[in-house]
């Protein structure tokens, strides 16, 4: 049969058209497959412990007799009543350290983003360099640096600054170690890169021509910074302060190594409740209070800074 009549064509072709192509359907599922590992990870290592911890916080009992869920919410009030000074101190120290990080980190990020030229990459490596050493080792090093016979104390002593800082209550008895100053310094030092990196990223994204345009429109350099550069770097400021404040508020290493019992932060209390006192419900309740407090503060902060549309 060599007759090429159209009747020989497969008639089924148009009927197949409305059904979605299998490849297209597979494509639609790709995002879910990509999400799966992350969701599994979060379920196992975040959601499950969170539920476990929530149940722990409403248990009563002791290590010897075992803990039972008794819906004892009073643990929360008791914990808050007993440890609110440490809560307030944590927030105070973390806020101070965050402010210091911003004050130190902004000029540096600005310099790297706009003025460093070919030194830019080297400076970025230097900012990240401390991460190559363990957090614990670095903080221990600070213990030596701030110790009574160390360089900082002798330098401050010869400048006669310690009398002033003593009077302000940030140091005590001409010592730096085991004072609020030491803890805040440690927090500032340890979290500074978390401030600089987002700041740098958002500053670096600012079009240099906007500075020229502002200058062209009669803005002096300082006004240009106030009206153009700083507002445009707000996403970096918000991200940097969050990345600094949140871990700093929950930190206990700095207070443990650089402070005394008078500088205990909430992290130290939780740690000792869990590991030394073995009062699991109180430790769990404190963790939840800390989490809720940070969540509330962060929400308020993001609302206030109004950066949703800039990010």
């Amino acid at each position, binding site marked *: 049969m060599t007759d090429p009549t159209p009747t020989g064509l497969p008639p089924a072709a148009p009927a197949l058209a409305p059904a979605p192509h299998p490849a297209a359907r597979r494509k639609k599922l790709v995002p879910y497959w990509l999400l799966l590992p992350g969701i599994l990870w979060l379920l196992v290592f975040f959601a499950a412990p969170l539920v476990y911890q929530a149940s722990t916080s409403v248990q009563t009992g002791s290590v010897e007799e075992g803990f039972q869920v008794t819906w004892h919410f009073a643990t929360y009030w008791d914990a808050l009543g007993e440890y609110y000074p440490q809560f307030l101190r944590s927030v105070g120290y973390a806020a101070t350290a965050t402010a210091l990080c911003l004050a130190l980190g902004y000029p540096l990020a600005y310099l790297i983003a706009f003025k460093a030229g070919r030194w830019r990459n080297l400076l970025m490596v230097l900012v990240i360099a401390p991460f190559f050493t363990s957090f614990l080792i670095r903080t221990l090093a600070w213990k030596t640096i701030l110790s009574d016979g160390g360089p900082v104390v002798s330098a401050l002593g010869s400048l006669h600054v310690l009398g002033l800082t003593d009077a302000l209550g940030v140091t005590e008895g001409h010592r730096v170690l085991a004072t609020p100053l030491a803890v805040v310094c440690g927090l500032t030092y340890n979290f500074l890169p978390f401030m600089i990196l987002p700041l740098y990223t958002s500053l670096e994204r600012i*079009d240099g021509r906007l500075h020229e345009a502002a200058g062209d*429109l009669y*803005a002096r350099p300082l006004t240009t910074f106030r*009206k153009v550069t700083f507002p445009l770097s707000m996403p970096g400021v918000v991200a940097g302060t969050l990345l600094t404040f949140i871990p700093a508020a929950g930190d206990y290493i700095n207070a443990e190594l650089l402070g005394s019992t008078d500088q205990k932060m909430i992290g130290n209390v939780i740690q000792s409740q869990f590991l030394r006192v073995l009062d699991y419900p109180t430790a769990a309740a404190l963790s939840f209070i800390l989490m809720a407090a940070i969540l509330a503060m962060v929400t308020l902060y993001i609302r206030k800074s109004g950066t949703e549309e800039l990010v």
Partner: protein
Amino acid sequence: MTAIATTGTDVRLTGISKTYGSFTAVHPLDLSVPAGSFFALLGASGCGKTTTLRMIAGLEDPTSGTVELAGRDVTALPPYKRPVNTVFQSYALFPHLDIYENVAFGLRRRGVKSVKKQVDDMLELVQLGDLARRKPQQLSGGQQQRVAVARALINHPQVLLLDEPLGALDLKLRRQMQLELKRIQTEVGITFIHVTHDQEEAMTMADTVAVMNAGRVEQLGAPAELYETPRTTFVANFLGTSNLIAADVLDTSGDDILLRACDTKLALPATRCTATARTGEKLLVGIRPEKITLTHADDAASVPDGRNRITGRITQAGFIGVSTQYLVDSPVAPGLSVYAQNIERDARLAPGAEVVLHWNPGHGFGLDAAQSIEAGTDAGEAGT
């Protein structure tokens, strides 16, 4: 809007130059821009036109020379102290401010308290009144461009500097904005200095055009003057298209210079020749494609006397609606361009046809033969 009624010179550049290391972006250059004029700096990219503009704005420090604005030396002043404003190529609108605040920016910096009326009027002038509370990224390219103009104009600058402001727009919108800018300039009467690489744009908008090439001003004049009487091959080729024919000078004694190119005799009025013509030396005779008439060789007898005539053969004919563009090879010069209006089309004028090209000698122009014949063309671009 109150037009600033000034007369005389607004911008005077004296011996201004800019070098970056060993690269000279702008050679020492003198330029005067009359008050109230629409002045265009025209040139290919990298010719130094933007650098010149930035030196006027104060965004670039000149290596030598001075910048005067309305008789005042502003060379040492930072941009924020100069009475000029710039419309940037990328518009550089502040993304965190809405249109209203973008336009009000300059007024607020100068401490003007009540900006509302001025901002509203200015947004009205650029026809963006109803978009005042939008953010720049919510606007189209043409609208952003108008915001950039409004943001600069509201300050009543002595001079408005425009750095390729239409470069990012598509062709149709660009044509529309050209007319718009011209309208605004006429309305406010402020001196505009416009940098562009688009020769058509420069000619449509500007009263005076300065053609720049490799850091120098090649020629300055009214668009028609530049087009009809280019003084260098660069201007002849960059501004529109020119046919340049190398010819030997036979006689310079009369009103017309008599020349010979490959056994073809040509005439050129002495007044149309900017180079010095000496008998026995070479000269370039230029003629614009639309000034040439094509006649089929069979009708050669009908060509009136007194016209320059060249014989050749059509190699290409391109129909583009209003006109037909022919390429004609002639022993005198290869690849001559001829544009013929599509009024009465001669069907015999097709590739392969033998033709006579003829033109009124008064439409030709004479150029120094010592310069590159290809300067300013796409082919010459690589060489310069």
